[in-house]
């Protein structure tokens, strides 16, 4: 859609309360020209998928630092499929060890951004890869 800014949903699933990273990312992506919606903490995967649908976002980003990214992303995969968001760009960030990256990619995560990733890198990834996804 021409002239429309890319809409990004940032979400905190599970019980993890570490929200410094996601708030910083929200501020940074906004400065980079994105429309950012942040869900707040302790969201269920179904609420996140539903919000993504209602807000008509092109990108869904999850931040998980508690170490429970694998079980959460397995549930998120199903929630996205149920909501018909199968092909939406899906990013995961946080305390994600390298060895878990292939497992997440296998689940359909578009890209993994471990803690410490510069915001520019996330913004550039979205700009360069958005066409690969339908929305």
């Amino acid at each position, binding site marked *: 859609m021409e002239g429309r800014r890319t809409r990004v949903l940032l979400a905190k699933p599970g019980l993890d309360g570490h929200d410094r990273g996601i708030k910083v990312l929200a501020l940074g992506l906004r400065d980079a020209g994105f429309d950012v919606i*942040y869900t707040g903490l302790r969201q269920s995967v179904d609420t996140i998928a539903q919000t993504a649908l209602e807000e008509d976002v092109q990108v869904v980003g999850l931040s998980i630092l508690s170490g429970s990214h694998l079980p959460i992303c397995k549930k998120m995969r199903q929630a996205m499929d149920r909501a018909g968001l199968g092909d939406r760009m899906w990013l995961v960030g946080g305390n994600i060890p390298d060895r878990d990256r292939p497992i997440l990619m296998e689940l359909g995560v578009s890209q993994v951004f471990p803690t410490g990733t510069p915001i520019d890198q996330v913004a550039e990834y979205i700009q360069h890869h958005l066409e690969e996804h339908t929305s």
Partner: protein
Amino acid sequence: MSKGKDRPDLPQVRLESGIEVKPVYTADDIAATAIAADDIAPPGEYPFTRGIHPLMYRRRPFTMRQYAGFGTPEETRRRFAYLMERGQTGLNVAFDLPTQVGLDSDDPQAEGEVGRVGMAVDTLADMETAFEGIDLNEITVSLTINGSAPIIMAMYFALAEKRGYDLSSLRGTAQNDILKEFVSRNTWIFPVEPSVKMVGDTIEYCARHLPRYSPVSVCGYHIREAGADPVQEMAYAFLIARAYIDHSLERGLSVDDFASRLSFNFDIHGNFFEQIAKFRAGRRLWARIVKEDYGARNPRSGWLRMIAGGGGGGLTIEQPENNIARSAYYALISTLSGTQTMALCTYDEAYTIPTEKAARIALRTMQLLTTEMGITDTVDPLAGSYYVETLTNQMESLIRQEMDRVESAGGIVKAISQGEIQARVARQAYAWEKGLRDGSIRKVGVNCFVEEEEERQVEFHPYDEGAAARQVRSLKRVRSQRDASRVAGALAALETAARQGQNLVEPCIRAVSVYASVGEITTVLKRVFGTYREPRIF
């Protein structure tokens, strides 16, 4: 303050708090920034700039209390034993997220989180297991618990009672600082007002029944970890402590009944001398606040008793072994600041729950200071330094200013309820991030002295998938063996007490004593108080 005017050719140095550092300090700088005649009173004397005790570590070194806990209570007890066998002198219990937010291990929302970032606790049986064989008079236990603190504290008191300890002499600490949870860490459960009321319940209960127990450890630590600068860290912690004091006074307690049992938890990373000045200034300012604003007569009421620990916020994912060196500097700062208790984040903590080896290195780092460096030989060795005393004066003024700013805008409880503090701290975290990117903030391994092809040789603490299943089985066993009618009776009594605005500690103790679970008790309290909703600040 002269602004580098002595040497205009030198680049300016500005601390996080905004203070400009001169290349050279003299006695004139101390005099120019002095606040009162008693600024540098001897250690153990009001206003305690140099330490709350006259002899400090010469009499007894700081307590070493690494944060530990994971999996089931069995596994956590083994880690406790490992640390105690190696000379750790206090315990600091980490609970898993379901326990922290009041969910039982078999709650669908707890799936995947049981035992992951701390020990799972559902009922008193778990606390009995975790502390089996540990003499609660021999080693002091700190419970890092907030949202569900009244329940976990009740379990600890019930456990002590059952094992025959005299509660009137039981020592220990609960973190139990719910206001900071709304700013950072976020293990809140109930709305702000009933949450503060329950902190008041624990303060009142301890003042009456456990006078040696510290019911609250007010945390600047996590606020700084979320992005606050050192001045805000201290200012917000003191404002939060004041909120608890004000609430307790409204209940009819007098300040000397409980203020001496309030303790504090602060963060160490960033500029070396700025941190030391922060603690010396904070200690002095807190003493002045408690005496001048609250009229405390007992000098101990104004003691800033603290755990000052090496903060995770200073450690890096990049070149993780460098974190061992960083933590050693943080430990040195903590010692030079007169802390009562120390804990260090381990070098692998950005990746994983600390491995045994990493936990041991952190403990040894502290032991190196107390045994090899002579650091505990004399009290407050930096006292009288032109730079340190000047910085201490400047920090005290800045902390006081930030406190005044928040108070004149309606106070800390309002500022937190409306998300104002959260937004301010998040904006600062963003400014920090931008500083790292533009190079105005330098961090070794992150934006300078970077290794190209980095090998991250971090050994991971294994997450035991079986632990959750074992925990759920043990919860089911407890549920089937307990007296269901007594549980129902205790929960009904708790609900009545909550609706009538009574102190909830005693009803919680009665409920946990018949093995009501964390989730069951929380459900009852949610029915009465509701659930917190985050203010939309983003």
